[in-house]
């Protein structure tokens, strides 16, 4: 019979104390920077402009170089080719040697030669080969009274894909792994912080003051909800940065599909995180000192790891089964939705099971939390905590 907003006050304190914690802010900022960095590098690499300097030492070569320039610039959007002429072969070689030109185009070996200093840029070579072959073939065809088209007729090779979804499967896997990783990070870092803050309250005995004012359940609810809101906000930030980043890369066509699946991830994240966070709070309540948390939280560390491994490695039937089993379903099911292997009713069913499981866990956890919160001598086993009188 306390104010209905007591949990809200607790949740607000949790959020504010996190938001004023430099470690939390820097780690969030750091991860955002890494995500932005990954996509930034990708986008930069894809959009990098390049310029090639080609030198020639004869007018025949210069004419051929004009052809090479045209084809290369047609083939590669951001590439330009600069042409220059040298008086003789030695001068041209010298320009390449001292880096003023990338290649020297000249005749030799019964054809044409591109001489570079240590290498010849691949895209320039590909385009040059096409340009020179077409040019020379045109001349040869004319000499033989025919045309290039006639010579090439029927020789085109094209490709076709029977599995058009292959791309999407790869994308689903990559995005799924990324989200599984984020879920793992969030439940682990927030969980551990939550356990530690419960121990802090126990160790400083402020919990004695708080629980004379509000009920233990309200305290637990406030702490879990506060952390959930923060974890969710952090995760949303990462996902948004990721999606914006993705839209700048060549994979931008996947953004709509991923955005759709994020809805399912959100629902599963909220419930799954709530379930785990409550257990982390119990792990904190079972210990009396920060040092003990490592021991009391070991089972949880294992569970979180197991969820991650299930997300990364589960396959076939195992994956289908795990997508219904809490707490694995929290991440495995939305991954299946993303890859398109689970219909909406399966997702809904898994979510319902997860909600029921979370409800049960919260009830059990509240009892454990309540009974162990005022025990300040050493560590408690689950059995002790369960049977301790209030």
């Amino acid at each position, binding site marked *: *019979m*306390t*104010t209905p907003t*007591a949990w809200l*006050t*607790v949740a607000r*304190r949790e959020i*504010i*104390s996190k938001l004023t914690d430099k470690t939390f802010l820097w780690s969030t900022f750091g991860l955002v920077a890494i995500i932005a960095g990954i996509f930034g590098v990708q986008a930069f690499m894809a959009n990098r402009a390049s310029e090639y300097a080609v030198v020639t030492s004869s007018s025949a070569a210069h004419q051929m170089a004009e052809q090479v320039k045209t084809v290369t610039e047609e083939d590669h959007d951001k590439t330009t080719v600069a042409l220059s002429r040298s008086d003789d072969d030695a001068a041209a070689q010298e320009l390449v040697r001292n880096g003023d030109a990338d290649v020297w185009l000249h005749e030799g070996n019964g054809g044409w030669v591109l001489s570079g200093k240590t290498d010849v840029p691949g895209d320039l070579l590909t385009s040059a080969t096409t340009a020179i072959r077409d040019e020379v073939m045109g001349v040869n065809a004319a000499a033989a009274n025919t045309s290039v088209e006639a010579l090439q007729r029927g020789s085109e090779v094209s490709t076709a894909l029977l599995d058009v979804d292959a791309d999407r499967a790869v994308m689903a896997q990559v995005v799924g792994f990324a989200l599984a990783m984020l879920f793992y990070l969030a439940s682990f870092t927030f969980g551990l912080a939550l356990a530690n803050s419960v121990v*802090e*309250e126990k*160790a*400083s*005995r*402020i919990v*004695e*003051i*708080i*629980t*004379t*004012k*509000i*009920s233990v359940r309200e305290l637990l609810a406030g702490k879990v909800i506060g952390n959930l809101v923060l974890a969710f906000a952090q995760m949303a930030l990462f996902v948004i940065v990721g999606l914006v980043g993705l839209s700048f890369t060549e994979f931008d066509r996947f953004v709509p599909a991923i955005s759709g699946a994020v809805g399912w991830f959100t629902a599963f994240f909220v419930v799954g995180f709530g379930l785990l966070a409550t257990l982390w709070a119990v792990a904190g309540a079972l210990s009396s000192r920060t040092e003990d948390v490592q021991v009391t939280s070991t089972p949880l560390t294992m569970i979180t790891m197991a969820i991650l491994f299930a997300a990364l490695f589960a396959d076939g039937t195992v994956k289908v089964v795990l997508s219904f089993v809490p707490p694995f379903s929290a991440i495995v099911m939305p991954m299946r939705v993303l890859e398109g292997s689970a219909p909406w009713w399966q997702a809904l069913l898994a979510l319902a099971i997860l909600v029921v499981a979370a409800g049960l866990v919260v009830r059990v956890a509240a009892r454990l939390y309540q009974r162990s919160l*005022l025990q*300040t001598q050493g560590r408690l086993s689950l059995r002790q905590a369960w049977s301790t*009188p*209030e």
Partner: protein
Amino acid sequence: MSTHLLEIDGLRRSFGDVVAVDDVTFTVPGGQMTGFVGGNGAGKTTTMRLIMGLLATHGGEVRWNGSPIKTLDRRRIGYMPEERGLYPKQKVLDQLTYLGELSGMTASAARTSIMEHLERFGLEDRAGERVEKLSLGNQQRVQIIAALMTQPDALILDEPFSGLDPQAVDSMVDLLREHASRGVPVLFSSHQLELVERLCDRLVVLAKGRVVAAGSVGELRGVGPVRYRITLGGDAGWLRDLAGIHVHDVDGSSALVEFQDEAARPALLAAAVDRGDVLDFARRIPALSEIYREVTS
């Protein structure tokens, strides 16, 4: 002035086979300071935790103004636990505001009350500091503010004076008296008997989980046998031979005596005057520490 009443009736609590609190009964009337004394492990802290609902009772009940105490009543009680602690990394004002809000105050009302209390303790310029930066004595003052800032209906304070310097003890005493004079029951435990004697109107003495004495200080003083100190002009050794009196102690010309019947008193005085001078004859008021030793022995 409305006066509240806190009654503890037959309270029991055991931990495993150990009975920590055994049929503890006493009242804490409003407007009075009730001292709660007893040795280590006597059950003071457990009793206070039972009153605050932090532990479940195994028998008996706590009554607030005549009816069994409810959660909402407890929320109106200022409580200071024995082992002090606040969030070490949170700022003083933020932390106290949080506790005030949990007690049902609005944030702004809480802040006003906190700043008034901080000023009283000369800590107003430390409001923005983290609790861990304060000295232990100042941390304790902050903790006291946490208990008092809501203008509580009762105060349950476990060892509120331990760790305070004499000056802080005095300002704390003033503050508690103010609250008592609002009609609020104040129960505090302490090891410092002379402080309790100076401070409290009533006393509850606990030993091995049981109440061995409870009542006003005057009442408790009346519990023990009445003794008189007599100082004569010469040696007092002859007093031992008089009938009807029990001599506890003779030190030269001075003696501590107890009369076994009323008639022995004038007889002794007459005999003393007969033999010479009587410099001093007074009823001796026992110190609280003596009463304490007597009731707990």
